[in-house]
Structures are given as C-alpha cells and as structure tokens.
C-alpha cells in the first residue's frame, strides 16, 4: 500500500468519528468561560478605577498648584512679614548676612529692648535725634555688646510700623499709645512678626519684639516718613486681604475626594415579579435546550425572590461647578442580596462544581450579587436650614457583576443550581438621594441622607431573574477629605 493511500483512508474514516460529550461538559464550559470573563472584567475595572483615582489626584494636585503658588507668592509679597514663634531663634529666619548682628541682638534682655523702644520712639518723633543718618545705640548694661549692637539690622516689626507711623509732630499721648501698642505685641509670646523694609533713600529697621537692639533712621525726612508710613500702614491691610483671598481660594477648591457608604434593603419590584411568574411555562434558558438550567421554568415550583440586605462603599471624586452644583464620579463596590426559598441541598459529586437544591420552602437561600460600580451624579444645593446645607443628588451608574452565587432553575430536574447563571453582567441604574451636611462650615463636608437606586437593566434575560429590576432603598453617608 502506498504511504499516502493509507493515510488518506485513515483520514477519511476518522473524520467521521464523533463522540457525544456528557451534558456536564457544556455546563462546565459555560461556567469556566463566565469565570474567566469575570476575571478579565474585574481586572479592567480595577485598572479603570486606578486610572480614574490617579487621574483625579493628579488633576487635583495640578489644579491646586496655583493656589499654593499664590500663597508662596503672598509670602514673597509679604516677604517682609513672616510669622515665627516669639521664642524662636531669629537666626533661623534671617539671612546669613545678618547672623552676626542677630547673635548680638539675642544677647539683649527684654528691658533693654523696651528701653530701645523708648529710644526709638523718641527718635522717630524727631525730638532728640537729628533727622539725617542717625544711629541710636541702645544703652545696655552690657557695654561690650554695644558696638556690635550698633550695626544696622534690616528688620522691622509691626511695632516699628507703629513707630514709623508717628509723625515728628505727634504728641506725647500718641507716643504712649504707640508704646503701649508695641508693648502689648512685645509681651505676646504667641507669634512675632518680622518685617524687613528696604527703601532707596531711607531705612527704618527695628528688630523684632524679642530682639530689638537698634533702630536706624537714615536720610528720611518727615514727609517721606509719612508716605512710607502710609504705605506701611496699608501693607498689613494688604496682607489681610491676601489672607482672605487665600481662604477664599481654599473654599473655592474645585476638586475633592470623598468616601461614601450606603446600606439598606434590596428588593425587586412586585410588578416585575408578577410578570415574571405569571407565565405558565417559559424558556428561561438558552434556546430552550432541555439541558440548560432554567429551561421550561414552571411558576408553581419556583420560589419568588424576597428582599435582602445591600450595601455599597467606595471612593469618589467631585468637581464643583459652582457654589451650589457639583459633579461626582467614583468607584464603588456594591453588595446586594435576594432571598429565595428552596428545599434541601443535594449532595453532589466532587466532579461537579456547583450546588444543587430541591424545590421547596424549608431553606432560605441568599442569592448574593457583587458588583463593581462607576457612579456619576450631579448634586445641587437645594436650601440651607441654619448651618445645614441640603443637597440633592441625581445620577446614573454602570455596574459590572464580579461575582454571584445566584440560583438557576432546571425544570426538567426540578432543581436549583448554583455556579451557572444567566444574569446580565452589566447593569445600568438610576439613583437619587438627599444629603444633609452635618459638618460645620469650616470643616470638610459630612453628608447623610436617604438614597434610592433603581436598575434600568433587568437582572437577566431569562431564568429566575428574568425581568427583575432591583430597587435599593437605604441611607447613605459621605465624607469629604477636605473642604
């Protein structure tokens, strides 16, 4: 026999060979395909969620950057006004150029500072000090330091502004007021404001309240003093305005992140239930195959689904669209359940990877559904009661089924099965909620309120869950991470 002929004959004969597989094989194939798809989808949703969160955070950081920059700018603008603890070493905040002088300054006692202040006031009023290029030395007990102390220190305090604000014609009462104002500030241990003012023509420098050693007035006539004084007077106001702006900007932060948790009852509409089970007999399974679970579902033997518990928890990113409108998007894990009554559980062989239950009502079987959800909602502030803001949310969500132990029914065997289901993997839902902000106005929002969620997509095209649209009713709490 020719080699090819032999092979040809074998091919022809063996192509006819057919072996009918066991019914279990298809169920296993179906179950395995569903599991692998779930894994893929879960991975996809996880990746999507990660990207959303990462994107949200990055966007948030980028959008907040100008705010930080402006605050940095403010610090620059008011670079002459830095707040440091009163007891803090000035060297930490001063340029190296002044470090030597600062060391000298630190040696002065508080009484010396006060006397220096008095001298400064006296000097500023022009009563005893010549107008041009005068350096007033502090009369300290430590004469060794006096020469060093005489070095000009280009630092001013608010107190010095007060000093500078006093015109040469100021009377004694005003001087006293200025002094007392300064002393108040000097005695305050909370914070010390240090200011450095450099002028082309004139220079007024006073060490901070804790370390005043010397005041130098250089080529500054009265008019210029007045102008400068006015300018300096306006600077604290300017700083105050900037601070206000910062606060406002902080309040106007457009992006934010929060967490939410909702718990309640999951039920299916009675109308859809009656519709589902009113039919005498229908093919819930695939193409009416008798091997398919749920094929030929009979109303008499099938338990209706009863309400079960549900909860949802997740992270959300929101964007303010105005004072009373915001858009929220997030990622949630949703758990929901429905209870069905079955008979006893049947022992299955190890080869079969699903559970079987008889028909009956002795066992309450909880069908659990695990979804990953991407909710998108629009929130509008309705009104405020006192300090409490009332918001209303409306939105939609897309859910992906990631796991379930839901029962299917095989009417041929009159048995319930797990492991194989005809549930829709993707569900579109609508949601509405009320949210009352319980947090104080200066704290990140904490909302609580009722929530309703209705699935537009039916749970399954056939089988036990055919035509069911779950309705979730519960309470939701939301906590924002920052204001």
């Amino acid at each position, binding site marked *: 026999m020719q080699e090819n002929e032999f*092979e040809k004959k*074998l091919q022809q004969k063996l192509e*006819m*060979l*057919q072996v009918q597989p066991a019914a279990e*094989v298809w169920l*296993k*194939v179906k179950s395995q395909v569903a599991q692998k*798809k779930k894994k893929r989808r879960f991975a996809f949703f996880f990746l999507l969620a990660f990207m959303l969160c990462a994107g949200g955070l990055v966007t948030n950081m980028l959008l907040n950057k100008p705010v930080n920059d402006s605050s940095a700018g403010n610090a620059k603008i008011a670079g002459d006004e830095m707040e440091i603890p009163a007891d803090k070493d000035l060297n930490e905040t001063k340029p190296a150029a002044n470090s030597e002088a600062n060391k000298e300054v630190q040696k002065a006692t508080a009484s010396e500072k006060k006397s220096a202040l008095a001298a400064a006031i006296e000097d500023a009023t022009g009563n005893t000090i010549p107008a041009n290029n005068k350096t007033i030395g502090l009369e300290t007990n430590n004469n060794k330091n006096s020469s060093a102390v005489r070095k000009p220190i280009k630092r001013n305090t608010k107190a010095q502004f007060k000093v500078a604000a006093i015109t040469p014609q100021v009377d004694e009462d005003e001087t006293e007021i200025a002094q007392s104002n300064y002393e108040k500030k000097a005695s305050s241990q909370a914070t010390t404001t240090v200011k450095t003012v450099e002028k082309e023509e004139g220079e007024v420098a006073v060490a901070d309240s804790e370390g005043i050693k010397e005041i130098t007035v250089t080529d500054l006539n009265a008019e210029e003093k007045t102008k400068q004084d006015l300018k300096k007077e306006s600077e604290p106001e300017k700083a105050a305005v900037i601070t206000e702006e910062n606060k406002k900007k902080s309040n106007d932060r457009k992006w934010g992140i929060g967490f939410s948790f909702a718990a309640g009852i999951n039920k299916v509409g009675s109308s859809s239930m009656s519709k589902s089970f009113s039919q005498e007999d229908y093919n819930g399974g*695939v193409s009416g195959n008798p091997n398919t679970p749920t094929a030929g579902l009979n109303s008499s033997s099938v338990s209706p689904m009863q309400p079960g518990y549900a909860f949802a928890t997740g992270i959300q990113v929101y964007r303010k669209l105005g004072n009373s409108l915001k858009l929220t998007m997030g990622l949630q894990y949703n758990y929901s359940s429905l209870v069905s009554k079955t008979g006893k559980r049947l022992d299955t062989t190890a080869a079969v990877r699903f559970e079987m239950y008889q028909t009956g009502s002795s066992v309450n079987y909880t069908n659990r559904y695990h979804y990953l959800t991407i909710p998108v909602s629009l929130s509008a502030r309705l009104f405020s009661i006192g300090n409490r803001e009332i918001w209303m949310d409306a939105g939609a969500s897309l859910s992906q089924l990631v796991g379930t132990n839901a029962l299917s029914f095989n009417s041929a065997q009159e048995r319930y099965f797990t492991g194989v289901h005809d549930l829709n993997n993707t569900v579109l839902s609508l949601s509405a909620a009320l949210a009352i902000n319980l947090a104080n106005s200066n704290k990140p929002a904490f909302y609580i309120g009722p929530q309703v969620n209705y699935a537009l997509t039916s749970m399954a095209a056939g089988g036990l869950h055919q035509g069911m649209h779950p309705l979730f009713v519960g309470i939701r709490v939301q906590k924002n991470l920052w204001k």
Partner: protein
Amino acid sequence: MQRLSLNHCQPHIPMDYRQLVKDCIKEKPAAQEELYRHFAPSMLGVCYRYTKSVEDAEDVLQEGFVKVFLHIKDYTASGELGAWIRRIMVNTALNFLKKNKKYRTEMVFTEAPLHPVTDLNPQVNLDAKELAELIRQLPTGFQTIFNLYAIEGYTHVEIGQMLGISEGTSKSQYARSRYLLMEWLENLSSTSKHKRYAGK
C-alpha cells in the same frame, strides 16, 4: 463506548457560521451553545484520538471550547471555522498530554534510526471507531505523532516544532508507529479472513 457514533449517521447541515461567530463575539449565550452543540461531537472525536480515556478527552474538549469562546474574536472568516476549532483542540490536547502526569512520562521522544518501510499491505476495513481504538493502543508518543502526521496532516517539521523534537525524531517515531499499526491491521485482517474461511 456507547457515545461513539459515526458522522454519516446524521445529515450534514450546511451552516452560515458568520452570524454565529458574530453572536459568539457578542457573548450571546444562545450562539455559544449552538456553536458548542454543533462542533462538540466531532471535536470530542479529535480529542478522543489523542487521549486514553473519554474523561480525559472531555477535559480537553472543555478546555478547548473555553479557549474557543475567549478567543473567537481572533478568528478570521477567511478560514473554515471547523478547522480553526480543530487546531485549538489539537493544541489543547498536546498541552494536556505534556502537563498531565499520566501522559507526561510517555511523551519523551528519543532519537532513533528510521524504521525500514514495511511491505505489509493491510486492508483498512475497520470503521472509524475501531480505527480510533487501534490508534489509542499505541504508546502515547507514537499515538501523538501518528495523529499529527497521518490524520491532521502536519509535516514533520511542524510536528518537531510543536513537540520540541527534531524532524528526524518525528520521522522515525512516525515510521515505528505506522509499522506497529499496519502490523496490527494485518493481524486483524488475517484473523478475520481465517474467521471467514472457517465460517465457510
């Protein structure tokens, strides 16, 4: 082996697979089941030839169909769907043989001199079922190479690549398996002749 059947018993129904494939890509359960029901018996026949038991063949079939449904979007309509699924089944069967302890030890191919071509000329009067049973009597290595070369039509180069052996090894293994099979067929044919004469 009550589940074994012959193809000619059922009328061949020409099918338009395009819509079926489209629906399978859309993950419609009905389409998936239809595809499975249509191809499962013949594909189990393929898997059956590579394994030693029906249970193992069903495991290969299950794994193969999972791959089919997960990768059906990769199927190009230019080729025949049956051939595409068959290739998947063959590859799955080979993986199964390599991974399964029962078969792994017999899947070691040793380089051997080419077996001389036999002068035997047996008549292949056996039906598909009997032939398949005969092939399954071969040692796993021979069985695999015989299936790949004689039934699937792969070349020795391709077989070498698939099994990680040289072309020469594939040729020698095939020659030995073919010789064994022809000998068995010859014996069977002579036995049947004897029976026939004895009957007369």
